[in-house]
């Protein structure tokens, strides 16, 4: 069985793991020093490209490629915006890194800044993570004190990096890259029209690189241990490690740092299994399509694997559900979340989330009508691909997959007003509203 490969998570269970001393003792800031002093910016980008590092935030976009989109010869200021607004239900890997290993993010940010020629970094952290905010602010202060932030870092003339921790205030949509930029700019977290993409016109209208904090946190290790080491994990197209957030019906929930390509079964077993038979799994955060168990046990968790199975890797947040889970109830829970978190900018998402949650609530209360399922699918269909950001997909895909895979449960609910799963109780009715 695959054993966890502890890289980011090696020291996180120690006390004071978030201090710079602990980080330096683990060899911190050496990789960045080496990369920044010994490599040219183009070489750094090339190195990242060759490593095959892809974004760990959800979309899986190749990091090196993203950096190379930023215009080189521009006198406009460029920004690095780090996305720590982790709000996808089921995901908690960023929280762990930001709270307990924050200096890896700062060190990675230094490499990114050196590569793209950036001197200002904003790290956007969720408003609901006060501890992470305090730790990051502390870490930034320590880094300034030790000269890892500020002017002429590593003694390189003109290599100045300023980093500011920007605290959000409770909006899932700020996890979307342009929504996050709007929020940093001090506005409502409305995603922006694309094109122009952030790499050309992002924060304050300037070229901006947006990366997930974990993506950035891996950079020091890739530079420190080399492309060979990194590529020894995972597959050709999806190399490297991934912190999987495993939650739901397993004995030992938590972040498991494993190579890309482990199967869902391996993850389940690593996490201690569960006493009851399993029914379904969400492989990549709540907005990815649900997969039916046991059909999906052997899906490899790479960027391509879940996609072939009809879902996506997303943020690698794996939520297991056992047979007692009522899928109508589960969908209602998720849709309520999306209804609450839709920014309301585009019509299909603003109206579609509200409408679908009303229908599913009605079904869960036993008042479903024939035709409701078709209407639900119609809503998803009408919304997906028709909004500014991918939020429509985020609430459309669950609708499509829950209804497609567990249509019998929905139909039974509509027919009898009750749930068919063994031992499950319709609970949404009690929580309506």
């Amino acid at each position, binding site marked *: 069985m695959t054993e966890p490969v502890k890289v980011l998570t090696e020291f996180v269970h120690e006390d004071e793991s978030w201090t710079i001393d602990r980080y330096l003792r683990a060899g911190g800031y050496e990789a960045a020093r080496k990369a920044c002093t010994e490599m040219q910016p183009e070489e750094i980008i090339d190195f990242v490209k060759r490593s095959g590092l892809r974004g760990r935030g959800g979309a899986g976009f190749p990091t090196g490629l993203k950096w190379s989109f930023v215009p080189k010869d521009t006198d406009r*200021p460029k920004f690095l915006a780090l996305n720590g607004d*982790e*709000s*996808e*239900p*089921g*995901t*908690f890997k*960023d*929280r762990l890194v930001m709270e307990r290993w924050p200096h890896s993010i700062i060190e990675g940010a230094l490499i990114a800044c050196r590569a793209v020629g950036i001197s*200002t970094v904003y790290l956007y952290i*969720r*408003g*609901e*993570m*006060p*501890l992470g905010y305090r730790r990051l602010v502390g870490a930034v202060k320590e880094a300034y004190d030790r000269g890892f932030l500020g002017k002429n870092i590593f003694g390189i003339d003109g290599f100045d990096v*300023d980093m*500011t921790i*920007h*605290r*959000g*205030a*409770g*909006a*899932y949509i700020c996890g979307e890259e342009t929504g996050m930029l709007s*929020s*940093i*700019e*001090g*506005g*409502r*977290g409305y995603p922006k029209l694309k094109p122009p993409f952030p790499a050309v016109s992002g924060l*304050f209208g300037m070229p901006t690189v947006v990366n997930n904090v974990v993506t950035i946190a891996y950079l020091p290790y890739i530079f420190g241990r080399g492309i060979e080491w990194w590529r020894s994990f995972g597959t050709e197209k999806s190399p490297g490690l991934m912190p999987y*957030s*495993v*939650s*739901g*019906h397993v004995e030992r*929930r*938590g*972040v498991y740092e494993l190579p890309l390509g482990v199967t869902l079964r391996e993850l389940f077993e690593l996490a201690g299994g569960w006493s009851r038979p399993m029914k379904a799994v*969400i492989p990549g955060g*709540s907005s990815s399509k649900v997969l039916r168990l046991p059909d999906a046990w052997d899906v490899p968790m790479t960027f391509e694997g879940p996609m072939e199975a009809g879902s996506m890797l997303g943020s690698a*947040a794996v*939520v297991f*559900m056992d047979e007692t*889970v009522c899928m109508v109830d*589960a969908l209602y*829970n*998720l849709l309520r*979340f999306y209804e*609450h*978190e839709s*920014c309301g900018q585009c019509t299909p998402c603003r109206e579609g989330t509200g409408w679908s949650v009303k229908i599913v609530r009605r079904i869960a209360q036993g008042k479903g009508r024939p035709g409701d399922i078709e209407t639900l699918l119609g809503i998803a269909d009408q919304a997906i691909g028709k909004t500014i950001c991918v939020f429509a997909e985020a609430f459309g895909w669950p609708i499509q997959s829950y209804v497609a895979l567990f249509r019998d449960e929905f139909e039974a609910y509509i027919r009898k007003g009750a749930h068919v799963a063994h031992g499950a109780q319709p*609970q949404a009715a009690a*929580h309506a509203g």
Partner: protein
Amino acid sequence: MSAETVDKRELSPEARKEFEWLCGRYPRRRAVLLPLLRIIEREFGCIDEAGMALAAELIGISAAEVKSVVSFYTHYKRDTDGKYVIWVCNTLPCALRGARELTDALERKLGVRCGQRTADGRFSLKKAECLASCDTAPCMQIDDDHYDHVTEQQLDEILARYE
């Protein structure tokens, strides 16, 4: 353009200094709005009409724009909230592991439904949308304090810490 009845407020010198420092961290003043609102929340306990007017004045935007931003984000403490806000996570991973029971217990203990404020104004109970702590579900947050693996038995002790 706000009503004249609103009393003028001012930041304390330390907060004022922090605000000035923040202004230097961003290329545009408007970007300081979110951090400034946190400062105001801390200074005055919540963000009310006067607080928004103060933010508008300091940033140099209209009070309506501040209201627009404040109302977009759910995490700011408003004047309609209790002294402490209890955020109890109810999203799917937590719901799978007993968030409902915790919420019900909290509702029973406090005698209010989610979204309401206790009669004595001490607590507001709110459903949170994923606190990114799915591994320690059920979980809740009271203001800035996070509680993992909360059981009904612990509630009395936890709530007693907030006077």
